[in-house]
């Protein structure tokens, strides 16, 4: 079990704890003798989190629930062996896997009905990668495995024998509503390997719960709540939750949630409790913009994002209506000492942080363009970088390290409006970090 603990701890340290992995002593074939110590067979190896993600795009990783050592395979078998020496042996088998639990502030819990997988999950490219993590500010996907074992119950002078193994792959796909405060999780369960008595009868029960303040059940799939797993046949379940942030212009009024999947496996030949593994989503932040004094302001219904994901604000130098501004930003990222907003994966990368205070933004703009010709040449605006609406503006952190150019006013203004909408859709609250990526 120590091995299991270390492996999990390493995963967390690397930010790769995509799912609370369950490891065991499974051999993949029926054993005839007891291997009570951890065996070399481990769950399928997981790809490490890409360096890009570790270094910059996502700064904070939610720690996954700690495994409960008392429920691990080795502990269960040890207890059973001890019991068999002092009391008459029971009939039947025992099962084991690693048990993950973490009592928390659970606000909502949905038992997900499992439906046959129709193969049309809208999983984005990359979600199939082992252990993949956050994909964007509103999409996350994860893959993990549970390795399940069936053992004979120990008797005096007769150690337990491994009589069945199963590997169950669990895929999760999280989607957040960025224009409405709903979020959901699709769980796909598939038995990818089975031997011996575990090839039939193993049933899965899936719950998805939402933790954090003010989240509520909204919808769950209505398939079979206890579904027998068959080799190679996937089942999917779906749960959706609502958040209810109050309308506010204060970041402190945003609500934080996370979803946890609980996979319970049970075999009818066993008489011990089902084994459960759990895994959490990344932290979800939901907010709602304040209706302004202007009755003509478009309404905001609220929305949710993975706030720990630092998105890329991407502009093209050749496509769209802000190509000249994009080219200027690229020059400015090179020219400034801090290369503001440029992501390289290096430790010195400096992301931009959104600044909501319009008075400070005006000061940034004035400072950045103080040397530009006044009045501006016909058809030109002074375009500044870092953006005035960031804490890296020329009057703040970027003082003495900013850049300006005269840009066609159509291009500059198109970019300004586009970015304002980008901030809104990505729900970039004051201080939220982002990168600026210029593409051809």
């Amino acid at each position, binding site marked *: 079990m120590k091995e299991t603990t270390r492996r999990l701890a390493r995963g967390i340290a690397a930010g790769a704890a995509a799912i609370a992995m369950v490891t065991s002593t499974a051999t993949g074939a029926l054993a005839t003798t007891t291997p009570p110590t951890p065996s070399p067979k481990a769950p399928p190896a997981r790809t490490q989190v890409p360096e890009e993600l570790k270094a910059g795009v996502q700064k904070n990783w939610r720690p996954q629930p700690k495994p409960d050592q008392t429920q691990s395979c080795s502990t269960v078998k040890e207890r059973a062996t001890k019991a068999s020496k002092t009391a008459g042996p029971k009939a039947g088998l025992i099962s084991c896997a690693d048990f993950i639990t973490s009592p928390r502030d659970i606000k909502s819990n949905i038992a997900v009905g499992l439906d046959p997988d129709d193969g049309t999950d*809208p999983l*984005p490219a*990359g*979600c199939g990668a082992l252990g993949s993590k956050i*994909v*964007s*500010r*509103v*999409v996350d996907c994860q893959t993990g495995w549970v390795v399940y074992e069936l053992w004979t119950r120990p008797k005096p002078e007769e150690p337990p024998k491994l009589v069945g193994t199963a590997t169950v792959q669990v895929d999760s*796909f999280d*989607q*957040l*509503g*960025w*224009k*409405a*405060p*709903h979020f*959901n999780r*699709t769980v796909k369960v598939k038995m990818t390997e089975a031997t011996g008595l575990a090839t039939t009868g193993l049933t899965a029960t899936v719950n998805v719960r939402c933790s954090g303040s003010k989240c509520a059940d909204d*919808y769950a799939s209505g398939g079979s709540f206890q579904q027998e797993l068959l080799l190679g046949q996937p089942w999917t379940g*779906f749960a*959706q939750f609502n958040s209810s942030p109050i309308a506010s212009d204060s970041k402190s009024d945003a609500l934080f949630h996370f979803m946890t999947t609980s996979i319970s496996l049970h075999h009818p030949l066993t008489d011990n409790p089902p084994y459960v593994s759990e895994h959490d989503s990344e932290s979800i932040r939901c907010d709602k913009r304040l209706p*302004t*004094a*202007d*009755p*003509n*302001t*478009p*309404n905001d219904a609220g*929305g949710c994002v993975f706030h720990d994901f630092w*998105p*890329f604000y*991407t502009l093209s130098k050749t*496509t*769209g*209506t*802000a190509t000249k501004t994009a080219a200027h930003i690229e020059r400015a990222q090179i020219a400034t000492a801090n290369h503001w907003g440029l992501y390289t994966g290096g430790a010195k990368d400096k992301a931009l942080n959104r600044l909501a205070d*319009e008075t400070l933004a*005006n000061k940034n*703009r004035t400072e950045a363009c103080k040397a530009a010709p*006044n009045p*501006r040449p*016909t*058809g030109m*605006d002074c375009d500044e970088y870092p953006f005035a609406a960031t804490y890296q503006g020329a009057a703040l952190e970027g003082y003495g390290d900013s850049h300006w150019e005269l840009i066609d*006013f*159509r*291009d*500059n*203004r*198109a970019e*300004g*409006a*586009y970015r*304002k*909408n980008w901030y809104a*859709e*990505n729900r970039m609250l004051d201080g939220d970090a982002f990168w600026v990526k210029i593409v051809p």
Partner: protein
Amino acid sequence: MPEPVTTALSVSDGQFYLVDPSTRVPLLYSAGSNGLVGILGDGAACICTGTLDGFVQVAVAPRQGPPPSLLPGWDEVVDIAFHAPSGRFGVHGGAIEGPQLPNLADADPGPYRVRVHARGRDAGLGVETVRSASDIVEEYLIVAWPGNGDPEVVHQTRDAAGDHLRALPPDPTGMPPLMDTGGAQADPMGRKRP
């Protein structure tokens, strides 16, 4: 015709909008092909100013029917068809603290005719930033009445800002989607799988 309601409107990025509050259309930069006002979708239009950031003067006047004649003294005048799904629309400057301007819809949800008048845009382009209402250099008059979806009519074009915008109209549809979903078919409302 009742007296228009006039205010100093704070704009940013050289634009303000006509907005039905129910719209879900992103408020992007467009001057259509007329160089002044571009329809962004149902319940949203963009009006391009000369001033980049700060105040312009805006007067609005809802009417029951079309104005009897064209008003003299304006640089640019364009009539557009504007659809107000909720039956309410008005001027929106984009700032958090906007002024209280009246509803321009004087009838039910549906099509409206909006005449946008502008003057002083070239001066606004020159000064770029107007921090005080007393320094305003450009003005707008927006008149709206129930319409029937007739095509746009350009009455007057005579400022350099308009010439520049008409020469190469900014097209907001050429920009990438605002939310990168990493290739997933994510629903913006966070609802059941599409």
